[in-house]
């Protein structure tokens, strides 16, 4: 395999494996926030603000994987083609 093919496989693995953890975590966070809002609707504004910030934190992990994948594809230090 050439370095390009290995890079493409690496990028695919990075995104697909790296998206699993944040997906589970976001699902759990939203489910917990829904439950809390259903029990205490008066706490909904502060809950949703915390939820958004927390989701952004969790989502960052998936974004890191995406950035790594794009670095592999577009700024690969080992491929001297482009």
């Amino acid at each position, binding site marked *: 395999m050439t370095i390009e093919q290995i890079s493409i496989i690496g990028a695919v693995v990075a995104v697909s494996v790296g998206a699993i953890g944040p997906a589970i975590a976001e699902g759990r966070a939203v489910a917990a926030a829904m439950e809390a809002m259903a029990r205490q609707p008066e706490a909904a504004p*502060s809950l949703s*603000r915390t939820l*958004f*910030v927390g989701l*952004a934190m969790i*989502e*960052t992990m998936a*974004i*890191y994987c*995406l*950035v790594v994948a*794009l*670095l592999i594809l*577009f*700024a690969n230090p080992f491929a001297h083609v482009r």
Partner: protein
Amino acid sequence: MIGTHSPFDLPVLFSLGPVAITTPVVVTWALIALLGGGSWLLTRRLQLRAGRTQTALELLVTTLDQQIGEVIPDGGRGYLPLLGTLFLFLVVANASGLLPAVKAPTAHLETPAALAAVVFMSVHVSGVRRRGLRGYLREFARPTIFLLPLNLLSEVTRTFSLMIRLFGNVMSGEFVIAIVLGLAGLFVPLPLMGLELLTGIIQAYIFTTLAAVFIAAALGDTRKERSS
């Protein structure tokens, strides 16, 4: 590659002597002119009995003030200029990528890096200003001195993740739109563009809220310290 450029490329528009002026910088200048000129025009004739435009403007400023005040309980009003400007600029900058032939400046790594550097500096300056240099530095050695390296590391990594989060979200949205446009056709990415608009507003909100949370953490909850 189907007509997509690397997201790490910097298109140079022209150069002033040794300084290369890139496209995101020019777009940022245009946004600054738009926001500054718009603010000047809208606040030029303020009246006690507010008209329609002024009411909308007051609603915007009051909402921003309220949101910041909830995160920074004491002295949140003083951070309204910084955080409010940050929010408005980010909303306009993220949405500017939807205009034809314009790429959002936040979709390049450099603009989020500059904004994150502004947040980093203002966090530490406000912490030192509120609590003095010794008091602020002592906070890094809490709860024990062994956590000092981790606390210092987290200062860097959270600023870095602030930058990467904004860049990654905006850039990936534009990237997906470009790919779908190349694959499918002219009007197919319209729903994706709507989603991108929503993502841009949410990311602006998150960036501003996180900046406010960091500043509030640097200011410290003085009431709690006094009671404990």
